[in-house]
């Protein structure tokens, strides 16, 4: 399978008070297309830093990050923004939808940034929201949706830009168990049917239960890299 994410010698040193903090200490990692990967680790393990670097939200002190054969380690801010728009889908813990837009408009928004025509934006938004089970809530604003529904809109938004992979930071943390399971069902299905690559950061055992690969991060290093055979549900 093609490698979507390749990290080589990734090191990140923070210097907030003059005393250097080694958040990541030379990480090497390959993630292939279609993987359903989870990164776990205690607070302070470097999990957030690792995902920020993979997501192009931060840059390493040393090492290279290659997404879809493109080295993003030394890209400028605006180049990174463009790259994220077209290659990385984000799902956040707190949903982070635009509150003044409806579900459909939230999904359309990402395609608007890609300068797609209105007709195509409309068509794709309706289709994707249908895939996440929200065809009846197109015109609802986030305040009119439950937590689970909002997160499904967020997933739809992440997919609308046709990214290389989806980065989900604690996507189930603010959901009840029913909503969380329902969300994970959708993500698994997308992974299965589209070979969409998912990379999660989580503490949630429900997510870990479904992962194909579990990376454990401790003190800035990957301590375990476990591949799990899953049978289709």
């Amino acid at each position, binding site marked *: 399978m093609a490698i979507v994410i390749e990290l080589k010698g990734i090191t990140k040193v923070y210097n907030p008070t003059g005393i250097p903090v080694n958040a990541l200490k030379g990480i090497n990692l390959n993630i292939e297309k279609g993987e359903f990967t989870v990164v776990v680790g205690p607070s302070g393990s470097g999990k957030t830093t690792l995902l920020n670097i993979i997501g192009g939200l931060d840059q390493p002190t040393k090492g290279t990050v290659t997404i879809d054969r493109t080295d993003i380690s030394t890209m400028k801010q605006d180049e990174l923004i463009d790259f994220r*728009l077209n290659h990385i889908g984000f799902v956040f813990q707190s949903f982070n939808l635009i*509150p003044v837009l409806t579900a459909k408009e939230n999904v359309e928004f990402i395609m608007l940034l890609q300068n797609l025509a209105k007709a195509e934006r409309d068509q794709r938004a309706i289709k994707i929201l249908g895939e996440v089970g929200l065809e009846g809530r197109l015109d609802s604003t986030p305040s009119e949706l439950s937590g689970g529904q909002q997160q499904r809109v967020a997933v739809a938004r992440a997919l609308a830009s046709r990214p290389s992979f989806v980065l989900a930071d604690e996507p189930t943390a603010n959901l009840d168990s029913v909503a969380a399971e329902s969300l994970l069902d959708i993500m698994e299905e997308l992974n299965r049917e589209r070979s969409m690559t998912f990379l999660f950061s989580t503490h949630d055992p429900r997510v870990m239960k479904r992962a194909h690969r579990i990376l454990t991060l401790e003190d800035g290093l990957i301590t375990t890299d476990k591949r799990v055979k899953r049978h289709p549900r």
Partner: protein
Amino acid sequence: MLLSIAWRNIWRNKKRSIVMLTAIALGLCGGLFATGMMVGMAESMVNTAIDRYIGHFEIHTTSFKANPLVNDYIPGGDSIASSLKAMVGVVGVSARTIIEGMASSPASNSGVQIVGIISRDESLVTTDAKRVVEGEFLNSVGRYPVVIGKKLAEKLDVRVHSKLVLSFAGRDGSIIYGSFRVVGIFETESTLFDKSTLFVRRTDLAGLLGGPALVHEIAVRLVNAELVPQMLASVKAMYPTLAIDGWKDIAPELKLTAEMTDVSMLFFLAIILFGLLFGITNTMLMSVLDRVREFGVLMAIGMKRKRVFWLIIVETVFLSLTGAIVGVVVGAVLIDVTNHTGINLSIVAEGLTSYGIGAMLYPSIPATMYVGLGVLVILTALCAAIYPGIKATKLNPASSIRTYV
């Protein structure tokens, strides 16, 4: 969709937006009304001067204004007046005899300008005949009637039916005395005019001077002031040897007042908008700080910093324009109503009349003012949005996403 997002974002915090809109609306409404009063005062000064004496333009010999001698009259003055009366756009023409002299009563005396008129013609050019507060204008068939200003009557301690002696230099330099009877007392917006001008029949002056009526001044009233430039050009071409002056040249202080009012208008409103600038900047800054996480997410998912900046700009322009529209509409209605009803300033009438301004004020604003105001509002909004916009673009997406306000 970005325009739609910007508009909807304004209403996310309704209280804050309404407070800001109200501040903008009140500031502009107040500014417009104050400006309307300034313009109304300036227009009052100009219109009362035109109505009171000068008309829209006057004709003299080239040397008369500098040195008003009795022998420096306009040759064929009555014939010129007749020609002017026949021109399109001319409402009235008054051919006047002007002599500097002295008015004496048993109580006092005063230097005056004696204006010899044909009453019927004069009433088509000025409104002095309507300003008579006692007696009548020069309609009397009696001998040597005179109409004087109220301030002059007070100074000379005379009233209607009182006798006045007018003395002035004749054509041969000798002093001529004439006994006149006060038939009317007028009062205008200008105390200076009321103190220094009196009207007699032109034929009476001609009799005292011992010859035909002399025309020293021809005053012309047009349908409206917009015709002045065009009419001046035509008349100057017809009579190139005479001095033909529009009201702005006759009374340059009025022209200066009118021009200064135009400048003051925009300057005054610019000051108000400058004050509002800080309020708008503060409001937008708070809005940005409230949405740090949101902007972080927008940049994370792929919204370029330039677009974030423009979003703030558009939100600010929408907020400012909405307040401006409300303020301008309310201000315009207020000005329109008071322009019809007038504002009674009789409490300060004495001070106003010393400037030639009437006690009833009619605020007005030229239509072009609103266009200028619209431009100023947009400029203010753009300036106000710069700092908050830059603040938003400098946010770090990674840390902003984890901000909880």
